[in-house]
């Protein structure tokens, strides 16, 4: 009888240790996911939307101005909390013809009393429209510096491609203004492919 009790005790110990091992392994598995996930995405291209070759490529307009078609373009602005600026679009919505060049202005105001440098990150929603929206001249191409309490207008010249798929008749261009720290060439998030930013969630 005593033998059975010790054997039972040993069995319990073994099961407990085994299960504790599983717990430790699974905790490690969470951390192993970090490199494995990147590897998996690279090999299979699962996270492929951000890696498709078309991303970042602009489809040039193939025809002249399409007078028969109207596309609504909306402008949206966000300022990162680290940047003490106000930033807004002068025109919030406009109706445009594909193939024609338009110019709009954005207003920026440095609320602080010191010189601050920022960079705007553009994105287009729906993301399918991204390649058909070309910025001919944009303040987002360069970093922008405002001295203390300075106000300024920032221009954007753009054109919507005549090849824009027919089902898209409205798009939103969204700018997020990020702060540049001293000695940095580009904001922290500038490496993001535009789709990540364009894709809500």
């Amino acid at each position, binding site marked *: 009888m005593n033998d059975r009790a010790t054997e039972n005790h040993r069995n*319990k110990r073994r*099961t407990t240790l085994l299960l504790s091992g*599983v*717990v430790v392994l*699974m905790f490690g598995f969470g951390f192993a*996911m970090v490199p494995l996930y*990147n590897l998996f995405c690279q090999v299979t291209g699962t996270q492929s939307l951000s890696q498709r070759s078309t991303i970042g490529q602009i489809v040039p307009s193939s025809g002249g101005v399409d007078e028969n078609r109207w596309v609504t373009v909306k402008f949206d602005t966000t300022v990162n*909390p680290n940047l003490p600026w106000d930033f807004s679009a002068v025109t919030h919505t406009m109706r445009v013809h594909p193939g024609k060049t338009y110019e709009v202005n954005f207003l920026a105001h440095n609320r602080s009393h010191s010189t601050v440098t920022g960079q705007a990150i553009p994105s287009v929603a729906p993301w399918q429209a991204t390649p058909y929206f070309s910025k001919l001249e944009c303040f987002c191409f360069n970093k922008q510096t405002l001295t203390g309490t300075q106000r300024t207008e920032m221009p954007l010249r753009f054109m919507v491609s005549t090849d824009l798929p027919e089902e898209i008749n409205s798009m939103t261009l969204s700018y997020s203004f990020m702060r540049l720290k001293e000695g940095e060439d580009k904001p922290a998030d500038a490496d993001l492919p535009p789709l990540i930013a364009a894709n809500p969630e």
Partner: protein
Amino acid sequence: MSTTTLTHDEAHHHEAPKGWRRWLFSTNHKDIGTLYLLFALIMLFLGGASAMLIRMELFQPGIQFLDPDLYNNLVTNHALIMIFGAVMPAAAGLANWMIPMMIGAPDMALPRMNNLSFWVLPAAATMLILSFVVPFFPGGGTQINTGWTIYPPLSVQVGMSMDFLIFAIHLLGISSVLASINIIVTLLNMRAPGMTLMTMPMFCWTWLVTAFLLILVVPVLAGGVTMLLFDRHFGTSFFDAAGGGDPVLFQHLFWFFGHPEVYILLLPSIGVLSHVIPAFSRKPLFGYKSMVGAMLAVATIGMVVWAHHQYTIGMSLGAVTYFMIGTILISIPVGLMVFNFIATMWRGSMTFETPMLFAVGIVLMFTFGGLSGVMLAVVPADMQYHDSMFVVAHFHYVLMPGAVFGLFAGVFYWLPKWTGHMYDEKLGKIFFWTNVIGFNITFFPQHFLGLAGMPRRIVDYNMMFTEFNVVSSIGAMIFGLSHLLLLYIVIKTIRGGKKAESRAWEGAKGLEWELDSPPAFHTWTVAPQIK
């Protein structure tokens, strides 16, 4: 078995110790089970209170009395308190009470660890409540406005309350991992002689699978929130795109835990149903082996379909197709379980006491929630339903009947065993009907709201959604207040009532019904022989 085989401890503790020591130092599975259940009851009321505040705010469009961050913090707290504070501890309480009695064991295999796994919970709950309270004080930082999924980058920006929440999740995880190890060791090593794995009661099987799921996925969540903590304070960039991390990785880690978690919540209640339905149909459970197989299938497939919560993150077509097919596949074993329950009731001599009413309600309403789940699993449809009130309606239809009503059924079924008194059947039935009617009035209209485009987790809504929200809020008040009746019934039953026999329900089968009601402090010190 002679008395000489009793260990030192057992020989000296035949009676329950008195006073607070009985509870704080308890190693007795029945007392710890009671503690778990009482803790869950308190948390049920806390989580319920936050839900009622949410519904009061949504009674009318516009912002009534909650500011948006506070509203989202309540949404976060409601989910975490209900999942980690109410449902999981209540299921663990049932396991503690019933598993040793069902398998003829004197106690859990690791009684001291059992004490630890309960007493970590109040500490965790304190941290969780602090995470809600701290922002109200100066310097307390911002509120947790992320929802229970705590996705970065938002969760990296939240103030110090997020750190309280992260540590609360760590503690809750430790508690449930310890409890799971204990349950598995007990089930594998302490069954009465003659009871094999394939003849042990179904509740034990469901908990065996649940416990395995817990020890597989909870450590991954713990790892995920640890990385989040490191990103917040130690300059790492696991999820911060600026440093080469990927916020989507957190979503994968979270849902690798989060999806099996729904089966963790569901399965113990399926176990309760497997006892309640046969008892009140006076027939053995139909298809024991297929139940076990279906459960294992659900657990296995459930581990590898997590990304159906993330269809909109921009996965490739191949990936979303895989996750869609996997998810829809789960409906086959779950459907099998439902058919087993129906087949058990078929031509049985059924009576409808409160536990059985809840059981039948579950079979109906859980199936309904499962069907809206199949709708959500379909990728193109989900693109539309994602983050809408339809999702809220869906998971409340799965979790309320699937988890909570199952626990209610279990509590009413075993309350006579625990307390030695029969509960008031009339009040029990009133509770069932107010509860179920309130539940349906609350959540059924939310399907329509979601399909019409009302987003979830947003404090304000368009005027066009007003009518259904009013209905839903009124239902929520009925539903929420009905739980006061539950509290009253439980207290009344503990204090007195008709004496319960050993076999409190004449159709009930199993070792636990051979013991007195209430059972002695130590039971099955001599293991029963199973023929």
